[in-house]
Protein backbone atom coordinates (compact mmCIF):
# COMPACT_ATOMS: atom_id res chain seq x y z
CA UNK A 1 0.00 0.00 0.00
CA UNK A 2 1.37 3.36 -1.01
CA UNK A 3 1.70 6.08 1.52
CA UNK A 4 -1.24 8.39 0.99
CA UNK A 5 -0.45 10.98 3.60
CA UNK A 6 1.03 13.40 1.11
CA UNK A 7 -2.24 14.41 -0.57
CA UNK A 8 -5.28 16.39 0.45
CA UNK A 9 -8.51 16.42 -1.52
CA UNK A 10 -11.26 19.00 -1.45
CA UNK A 11 -14.26 19.10 -3.77
CA UNK A 12 -14.94 22.62 -5.01
CA UNK A 13 -17.85 23.29 -7.35
CA UNK A 14 -17.57 20.67 -10.10
CA UNK A 15 -13.84 19.98 -9.56
CA UNK A 16 -11.58 18.53 -6.90
CA UNK A 17 -8.61 20.48 -5.56
CA UNK A 18 -5.72 18.18 -4.74
CA UNK A 19 -2.80 19.35 -2.62
CA UNK A 20 0.63 17.73 -2.72
CA UNK A 21 2.62 17.80 0.47
CA UNK A 22 6.02 17.26 -1.19
CA UNK A 23 5.75 20.32 -3.40
CA UNK A 24 3.00 22.44 -1.78
CA UNK A 25 1.24 22.50 -5.18
CA UNK A 26 -2.50 22.68 -5.72
CA UNK A 27 -3.99 20.85 -8.70
CA UNK A 28 -7.47 21.56 -10.03
CA UNK A 29 -8.69 18.16 -11.23
CA UNK A 30 -11.86 16.64 -12.64
CA UNK A 31 -13.57 14.66 -9.88
CA UNK A 32 -12.99 11.35 -11.68
CA UNK A 33 -9.30 12.16 -12.10
CA UNK A 34 -8.94 12.97 -8.41
CA UNK A 35 -10.68 9.71 -7.68
CA UNK A 36 -8.19 7.80 -9.84
CA UNK A 37 -5.29 9.41 -7.94
CA UNK A 38 -6.93 8.63 -4.64
CA UNK A 39 -7.29 4.98 -5.58
CA UNK A 40 -3.72 4.83 -6.92
CA UNK A 41 -2.39 6.25 -3.67
CA UNK A 42 -4.40 3.67 -1.75
CA UNK A 43 -2.54 0.99 -3.67
CA UNK A 44 -5.36 -0.12 -5.98
CA UNK A 45 -3.84 -1.64 -9.14
CA UNK A 46 -3.78 0.30 -12.40
CA UNK A 47 -5.62 -2.56 -14.08
CA UNK A 48 -8.47 -2.50 -11.60
CA UNK A 49 -8.90 1.28 -11.89
CA UNK A 50 -8.60 1.08 -15.69
CA UNK A 51 -11.32 -1.58 -15.86
CA UNK A 52 -13.76 0.57 -13.91
CA UNK A 53 -12.92 3.62 -15.98
CA UNK A 54 -13.28 1.69 -19.23
CA UNK A 55 -16.74 0.62 -18.17
CA UNK A 56 -17.73 4.07 -16.99
CA UNK A 57 -16.62 5.88 -20.14
CA UNK A 58 -17.25 3.05 -22.59
CA UNK A 59 -13.67 3.26 -23.83
CA UNK A 60 -11.46 0.24 -24.62
CA UNK A 61 -9.42 -1.03 -21.66
CA UNK A 62 -6.04 -0.51 -23.34
CA UNK A 63 -6.86 3.20 -23.71
CA UNK A 64 -7.75 3.63 -20.05
CA UNK A 65 -4.64 1.73 -18.95
CA UNK A 66 -2.50 4.05 -21.09
CA UNK A 67 -4.38 7.01 -19.70
CA UNK A 68 -3.82 6.07 -16.06
CA UNK A 69 -0.14 5.24 -16.54
CA UNK A 70 0.37 8.53 -18.33
CA UNK A 71 -1.52 10.44 -15.65
CA UNK A 72 0.47 8.82 -12.88
CA UNK A 73 3.70 9.68 -14.65
CA UNK A 74 2.73 13.30 -15.26
CA UNK A 75 1.40 13.95 -11.78
CA UNK A 76 4.24 12.27 -9.96
CA UNK A 77 6.75 14.05 -12.18
CA UNK A 78 5.17 17.42 -11.48
CA UNK A 79 5.74 17.14 -7.78
CA UNK A 80 9.44 16.56 -7.90
CA UNK A 81 10.36 19.88 -9.40
CA UNK A 82 11.26 21.59 -6.18
CA UNK A 83 14.13 23.93 -6.72
CA UNK A 84 17.25 23.12 -4.85
CA UNK A 85 18.14 25.95 -2.56
CA UNK A 86 21.34 27.75 -3.17
CA UNK A 87 23.31 27.05 -0.05
CA UNK A 88 25.63 29.54 1.38
CA UNK A 89 27.42 29.84 4.64
CA UNK A 90 26.74 33.26 6.03
CA UNK A 91 28.38 32.72 9.39
CA UNK A 92 31.51 34.47 8.22
CA UNK A 93 29.68 37.55 7.04
CA UNK A 94 30.97 40.52 8.89
CA UNK A 95 28.33 42.89 10.16
CA UNK A 96 29.13 46.53 9.47
CA UNK A 97 30.39 48.51 12.41
CA UNK A 98 28.58 51.64 11.27
CA UNK A 99 24.91 51.95 10.36
CA UNK A 100 23.97 55.20 8.68
CA UNK A 101 20.34 55.14 9.87
CA UNK A 102 18.75 53.84 13.03
CA UNK A 103 14.98 54.01 13.45
CA UNK A 104 12.70 53.14 16.32
CA UNK A 105 9.17 51.94 15.62
CA UNK A 106 6.53 51.50 18.28
CA UNK A 107 3.84 48.90 17.61
CA UNK A 108 1.49 48.21 20.50
CA UNK A 109 3.83 47.95 23.48
CA UNK A 110 6.80 46.76 21.42
CA UNK A 111 9.69 48.91 20.33
CA UNK A 112 11.66 47.78 17.30
CA UNK A 113 15.10 49.21 16.77
CA UNK A 114 16.01 48.86 13.11
CA UNK A 115 19.48 49.74 11.88
CA UNK A 116 20.09 50.27 8.15
CA UNK A 117 23.59 50.42 6.76
CA UNK A 118 22.66 52.87 4.00
CA UNK A 119 19.87 54.84 2.37
CA UNK A 120 19.12 52.04 -0.08
CA UNK A 121 18.03 49.60 2.66
CA UNK A 122 16.29 52.38 4.56
CA UNK A 123 13.99 53.03 1.62
CA UNK A 124 13.17 49.36 1.22
CA UNK A 125 11.45 49.45 4.59
CA UNK A 126 11.02 52.83 6.21
CA UNK A 127 8.34 54.52 4.02
CA UNK A 128 5.77 51.88 4.95
CA UNK A 129 6.43 52.19 8.67
CA UNK A 130 7.37 55.88 9.04
CA UNK A 131 4.05 56.61 10.80
CA UNK A 132 5.12 54.28 13.64
CA UNK A 133 8.44 56.00 14.21
CA UNK A 134 9.28 57.29 17.67
CA UNK A 135 12.26 59.10 19.12
CA UNK A 136 15.10 57.12 20.60
CA UNK A 137 13.82 54.65 23.14
CA UNK A 138 15.42 52.78 25.97
CA UNK A 139 12.83 50.04 26.11
CA UNK A 140 13.81 48.19 22.99
CA UNK A 141 12.10 44.85 22.64
CA UNK A 142 13.57 43.72 19.32
CA UNK A 143 16.58 44.67 17.30
CA UNK A 144 16.65 44.29 13.51
CA UNK A 145 19.73 44.79 11.34
CA UNK A 146 19.57 45.41 7.61
CA UNK A 147 22.78 45.80 5.64
CA UNK A 148 24.25 45.40 2.20
CA UNK A 149 27.13 43.03 1.61
CA UNK A 150 28.36 41.92 -1.78
CA UNK A 151 25.15 43.14 -3.45
CA UNK A 152 22.98 41.13 -1.08
CA UNK A 153 20.68 42.61 1.52
CA UNK A 154 21.27 40.82 4.84
CA UNK A 155 18.67 40.67 7.54
CA UNK A 156 19.19 39.82 11.21
CA UNK A 157 16.57 39.73 13.95
CA UNK A 158 17.79 39.82 17.56
CA UNK A 159 21.22 38.62 16.38
CA UNK A 160 19.81 35.69 14.38
CA UNK A 161 20.51 35.51 10.68
CA UNK A 162 17.20 35.46 8.79
CA UNK A 163 18.29 35.65 5.16
CA UNK A 164 20.05 37.41 2.33
CA UNK A 165 18.44 38.56 -0.91
CA UNK A 166 19.70 39.94 -4.19
CA UNK A 167 18.15 43.01 -5.77
CA UNK A 168 16.01 40.81 -8.01
CA UNK A 169 14.38 39.14 -5.00
CA UNK A 170 14.10 42.23 -2.87
CA UNK A 171 10.31 41.93 -2.48
CA UNK A 172 11.01 38.66 -0.65
CA UNK A 173 13.26 40.53 1.77
CA UNK A 174 10.44 43.03 2.33
CA UNK A 175 8.01 40.15 2.78
CA UNK A 176 10.30 38.49 5.31
CA UNK A 177 10.72 41.76 7.19
CA UNK A 178 6.92 42.05 7.43
CA UNK A 179 6.68 38.40 8.45
CA UNK A 180 9.17 38.90 11.28
CA UNK A 181 7.19 41.94 12.43
CA UNK A 182 3.84 40.13 12.58
CA UNK A 183 5.47 37.18 14.33
CA UNK A 184 6.63 39.52 17.08
CA UNK A 185 3.43 41.60 17.20
CA UNK A 186 1.08 38.64 17.35
CA UNK A 187 3.40 36.17 19.10
CA UNK A 188 3.10 33.54 16.42
CA UNK A 189 5.85 31.58 14.70
CA UNK A 190 5.82 30.96 10.95
CA UNK A 191 4.17 27.53 11.33
CA UNK A 192 1.24 29.17 13.12
CA UNK A 193 0.19 31.07 10.00
CA UNK A 194 -2.08 29.53 7.38
CA UNK A 195 -0.94 31.98 4.74
CA UNK A 196 -0.17 35.54 3.76
CA UNK A 197 -2.30 37.07 1.04
CA UNK A 198 -1.52 39.83 -1.36
CA UNK A 199 -4.68 41.78 -0.71
CA UNK A 200 -6.23 44.63 1.24
CA UNK A 201 -8.21 43.75 4.36
CA UNK A 202 -11.10 46.08 5.18
CA UNK A 203 -13.03 45.53 8.38
CA UNK A 204 -15.87 46.63 10.60
CA UNK A 205 -15.99 45.63 14.25
CA UNK A 206 -17.05 42.06 13.51
CA UNK A 207 -15.37 40.85 10.37
CA UNK A 208 -13.06 41.61 7.52
CA UNK A 209 -13.29 41.37 3.73
CA UNK A 210 -10.28 40.75 1.52
CA UNK A 211 -9.93 42.82 -1.64
CA UNK A 212 -7.89 41.26 -4.40
CA UNK A 213 -6.93 42.26 -7.89
CA UNK A 214 -3.94 42.81 -10.08
CA UNK A 215 -1.71 45.76 -9.37
CA UNK A 216 -3.32 48.86 -10.80
CA UNK A 217 -6.90 47.65 -10.33
CA UNK A 218 -7.49 49.96 -7.40
CA UNK A 219 -7.20 47.73 -4.33
CA UNK A 220 -5.40 50.30 -2.18
CA UNK A 221 -7.47 53.21 -3.49
CA UNK A 222 -10.68 51.34 -2.63
CA UNK A 223 -9.26 50.62 0.80
CA UNK A 224 -8.47 54.30 1.34
CA UNK A 225 -12.00 55.25 0.25
CA UNK A 226 -13.53 52.68 2.57
CA UNK A 227 -11.44 53.68 5.58
CA UNK A 228 -12.65 57.26 5.07
CA UNK A 229 -16.23 55.95 5.21
CA UNK A 230 -16.43 54.15 8.49
CA UNK A 231 -14.41 51.03 7.80
CA UNK A 232 -11.04 50.07 9.21
CA UNK A 233 -7.86 49.13 7.38
CA UNK A 234 -6.77 45.92 9.05
CA UNK A 235 -3.93 45.18 6.60
CA UNK A 236 -2.78 46.35 3.20
CA UNK A 237 -0.65 44.43 0.72
CA UNK A 238 0.39 41.85 3.33
CA UNK A 239 -2.57 40.06 4.88
CA UNK A 240 -1.68 37.30 7.35
CA UNK A 241 -4.21 34.65 8.40
CA UNK A 242 -3.49 32.54 11.49
CA UNK A 243 -4.07 28.79 11.46
CA UNK A 244 -5.69 28.56 14.89
CA UNK A 245 -8.80 30.67 14.41
CA UNK A 246 -8.52 31.47 10.67
CA UNK A 247 -8.59 35.17 11.51
CA UNK A 248 -6.95 37.96 9.56
CA UNK A 249 -4.43 39.70 11.82
CA UNK A 250 -3.61 43.35 11.83
CA UNK A 251 -0.54 44.46 9.89
CA UNK A 252 0.46 48.04 10.69
CA UNK A 253 2.10 49.15 7.41
CA UNK A 254 0.92 52.25 5.56
CA UNK A 255 -1.21 52.07 2.42
CA UNK A 256 0.69 52.87 -0.76
CA UNK A 257 -1.22 55.31 -2.93
CA UNK A 258 -0.24 55.61 -6.56
CA UNK A 259 0.19 59.02 -8.09
CA UNK A 260 -2.93 58.82 -10.25
CA UNK A 261 -5.13 58.14 -7.21
CA UNK A 262 -3.87 61.09 -5.18
CA UNK A 263 -6.34 63.53 -6.78
CA UNK A 264 -9.35 61.31 -5.96
CA UNK A 265 -8.23 60.92 -2.37
CA UNK A 266 -7.07 64.47 -1.61
CA UNK A 267 -10.49 65.74 -0.47
CA UNK A 268 -10.59 62.87 2.05
CA UNK A 269 -6.93 62.96 3.01
CA UNK A 270 -5.53 66.51 2.74
CA UNK A 271 -2.32 65.22 4.34
CA UNK A 272 -1.48 63.45 1.06
CA UNK A 273 -0.78 66.85 -0.48
CA UNK A 274 2.45 67.27 1.42
CA UNK A 275 3.43 63.68 2.10
CA UNK A 276 6.66 62.39 0.64
CA UNK A 277 6.53 61.00 -2.86
CA UNK A 278 8.61 57.92 -3.64
CA UNK A 279 9.70 57.07 -7.16
CA UNK A 280 10.07 53.37 -7.82
CA UNK A 281 11.62 53.71 -11.22
CA UNK A 282 12.13 50.02 -11.76
CA UNK A 283 8.38 49.50 -11.60
CA UNK A 284 7.44 52.85 -13.07
CA UNK A 285 5.52 53.66 -9.92
CA UNK A 286 5.25 56.89 -7.99
CA UNK A 287 3.61 56.44 -4.61
CA UNK A 288 2.78 58.26 -1.40
CA UNK A 289 2.00 56.54 1.87
CA UNK A 290 -1.20 56.88 3.82
CA UNK A 291 -1.45 55.98 7.48
CA UNK A 292 -3.90 53.16 8.21
CA UNK A 293 -6.76 54.24 10.49
CA UNK A 294 -6.47 51.12 12.64
CA UNK A 295 -5.23 51.96 16.11
CA UNK A 296 -5.33 48.50 17.64
CA UNK A 297 -2.55 46.47 16.10
CA UNK A 298 -3.48 43.47 18.21
CA UNK A 299 -6.80 43.12 16.43
CA UNK A 300 -7.84 40.12 14.37
CA UNK A 301 -11.12 39.24 12.69
CA UNK A 302 -12.71 36.40 10.74
CA UNK A 303 -13.00 36.63 6.97
CA UNK A 304 -15.64 34.94 4.85
CA UNK A 305 -15.68 37.11 1.76
CA UNK A 306 -13.22 37.75 -1.04
CA UNK A 307 -13.84 40.62 -3.42
CA UNK A 308 -12.00 40.95 -6.71
CA UNK A 309 -12.19 44.67 -7.28
CA UNK A 310 -11.61 46.62 -10.43
CA UNK A 311 -11.82 50.32 -11.04
CA UNK A 312 -12.87 50.91 -14.63
CA UNK A 313 -13.36 54.45 -15.87
CA UNK A 314 -16.97 55.29 -16.71
CA UNK A 315 -18.21 51.79 -15.95
CA UNK A 316 -21.51 51.13 -14.25
CA UNK A 317 -21.26 49.37 -10.94
CA UNK A 318 -21.37 45.62 -11.39
CA UNK A 319 -21.30 43.11 -8.60
CA UNK A 320 -21.65 39.37 -8.98
CA UNK A 321 -20.74 36.23 -7.18
CA UNK A 322 -17.98 34.50 -9.16
CA UNK A 323 -16.86 30.93 -9.62
CA UNK A 324 -14.71 29.82 -6.73
CA UNK A 325 -12.54 27.74 -9.01
CA UNK A 326 -11.80 30.94 -10.90
CA UNK A 327 -11.12 32.80 -7.64
CA UNK A 328 -8.87 29.95 -6.44
CA UNK A 329 -6.80 30.19 -9.60
CA UNK A 330 -6.29 33.91 -9.02
CA UNK A 331 -5.60 33.64 -5.33
CA UNK A 332 -3.12 30.77 -4.99
CA UNK A 333 -0.24 31.87 -7.27
CA UNK A 334 -0.22 35.29 -5.62
CA UNK A 335 -0.15 34.05 -2.02
CA UNK A 336 2.24 32.47 0.40
CA UNK A 337 0.50 29.37 1.71
CA UNK A 338 1.99 27.40 4.55
CA UNK A 339 3.56 24.16 3.27
CA UNK A 340 2.45 22.26 6.37
CA UNK A 341 -0.28 19.70 5.85
CA UNK A 342 -2.41 20.82 8.77
CA UNK A 343 -2.35 24.41 7.49
CA UNK A 344 -3.06 23.39 3.88
CA UNK A 345 -6.12 21.49 5.13
CA UNK A 346 -7.29 24.59 6.97
CA UNK A 347 -6.77 26.70 3.88
CA UNK A 348 -8.84 24.30 1.76
CA UNK A 349 -11.60 24.16 4.38
CA UNK A 350 -11.64 27.94 4.71
CA UNK A 351 -11.73 28.50 0.97
CA UNK A 352 -14.55 25.99 0.60
CA UNK A 353 -16.90 28.04 2.76
CA UNK A 354 -16.13 31.62 1.72
CA UNK A 355 -18.03 33.80 -0.78
CA UNK A 356 -16.24 35.26 -3.79
CA UNK A 357 -17.45 38.39 -5.54
CA UNK A 358 -16.33 40.64 -8.32
CA UNK A 359 -16.99 44.36 -8.23
CA UNK A 360 -16.34 46.65 -11.17
CA UNK A 361 -16.92 50.33 -10.47
CA UNK A 362 -16.22 53.92 -11.33
CA UNK A 363 -18.56 55.61 -8.86
CA UNK A 364 -17.00 55.62 -5.39
CA UNK A 365 -20.29 56.08 -3.52
CA UNK A 366 -21.87 53.09 -5.25
CA UNK A 367 -18.79 50.96 -4.51
CA UNK A 368 -18.89 51.87 -0.80
CA UNK A 369 -22.61 51.13 -0.72
CA UNK A 370 -22.07 47.70 -2.30
CA UNK A 371 -19.24 46.81 0.10
CA UNK A 372 -21.49 47.83 3.02
CA UNK A 373 -24.10 45.40 1.71
CA UNK A 374 -21.55 42.60 1.53
CA UNK A 375 -20.63 43.34 5.15
CA UNK A 376 -24.30 42.99 6.04
CA UNK A 377 -24.67 39.79 4.00
CA UNK A 378 -27.26 41.68 2.06
CA UNK A 379 -26.10 41.26 -1.49
CA UNK A 380 -27.99 39.91 -4.44
CA UNK A 381 -25.74 36.98 -5.30
CA UNK A 382 -26.52 36.98 -9.00
Amino acid at each position, binding site marked *: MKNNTSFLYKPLEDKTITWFENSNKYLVLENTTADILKRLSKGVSVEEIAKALSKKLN*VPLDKTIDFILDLEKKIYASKSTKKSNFLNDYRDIEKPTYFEFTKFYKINNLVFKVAFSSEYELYLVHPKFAHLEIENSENITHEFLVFLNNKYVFFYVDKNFIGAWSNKDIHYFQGKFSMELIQKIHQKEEHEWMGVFHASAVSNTEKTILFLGDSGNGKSTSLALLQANGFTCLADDFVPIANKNIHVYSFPAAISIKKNSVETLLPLYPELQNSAEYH*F*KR*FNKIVRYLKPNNTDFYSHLPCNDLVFIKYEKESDLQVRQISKIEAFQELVPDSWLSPLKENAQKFLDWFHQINCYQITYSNNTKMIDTVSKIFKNNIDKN
Partner: protein
Amino acid sequence: MNNKEQNNDTISRKEAIKKIGNYSKYVSLTALGTYLILNPQEAQAQSPEAPGTGF
Protein backbone atom coordinates in the same frame (compact mmCIF):
# COMPACT_ATOMS: atom_id res chain seq x y z
CA MET B 1 -14.72 7.64 -62.80
CA ASN B 2 -14.17 10.98 -61.08
CA ASN B 3 -17.68 10.94 -59.76
CA LYS B 4 -17.19 7.54 -58.34
CA GLU B 5 -14.08 8.65 -56.46
CA GLN B 6 -15.90 11.62 -55.03
CA ASN B 7 -18.68 9.42 -53.84
CA ASN B 8 -16.20 7.27 -52.04
CA ASP B 9 -14.85 10.28 -50.14
CA THR B 10 -18.15 11.52 -48.81
CA ILE B 11 -20.04 9.79 -46.07
CA SER B 12 -23.64 10.06 -45.05
CA ARG B 13 -24.75 12.14 -42.06
CA LYS B 14 -25.57 9.00 -40.18
CA GLU B 15 -22.12 7.57 -40.79
CA ALA B 16 -20.49 10.85 -39.78
CA ILE B 17 -22.30 10.90 -36.44
CA LYS B 18 -21.31 7.30 -35.89
CA LYS B 19 -17.68 8.13 -36.61
CA ILE B 20 -17.65 11.17 -34.32
CA GLY B 21 -19.39 9.05 -31.72
CA ASN B 22 -16.43 6.71 -31.68
CA TYR B 23 -13.97 9.54 -31.15
CA SER B 24 -16.11 11.39 -28.64
CA LYS B 25 -15.43 8.55 -26.22
CA TYR B 26 -11.82 9.63 -26.15
CA VAL B 27 -12.78 13.25 -25.66
CA SER B 28 -13.98 12.33 -22.19
CA LEU B 29 -10.58 10.74 -21.45
CA THR B 30 -8.76 13.84 -22.70
CA ALA B 31 -10.92 16.01 -20.45
CA LEU B 32 -9.96 13.88 -17.45
CA GLY B 33 -6.30 14.39 -18.24
CA THR B 34 -6.65 18.16 -18.40
CA TYR B 35 -5.79 19.88 -15.15
CA LEU B 36 -4.31 23.00 -13.74
CA ILE B 37 -1.24 23.25 -11.50
CA LEU B 38 -1.10 26.17 -9.07
CA ASN B 39 2.08 27.04 -7.19
CA PRO B 40 1.83 29.33 -4.20
CA GLN B 41 4.71 31.76 -3.54
CA GLU B 42 7.64 30.01 -1.91
CA ALA B 43 8.15 32.82 0.58
CA GLN B 44 6.21 35.77 1.87
CA ALA B 45 6.49 38.69 -0.53
CA GLN B 46 5.45 42.25 -0.68
CA SER B 47 4.30 44.05 -3.82
CA PRO B 48 7.38 44.63 -5.91
CA GLU B 49 8.28 48.19 -5.01
CA ALA B 50 12.00 48.34 -4.85
CA PRO B 51 13.68 51.66 -5.27
CA GLY B 52 15.43 52.24 -8.53
CA THR B 53 17.98 54.91 -9.14
CA GLY B 54 15.69 57.51 -7.63
CA PHE B 55 17.46 57.30 -4.32
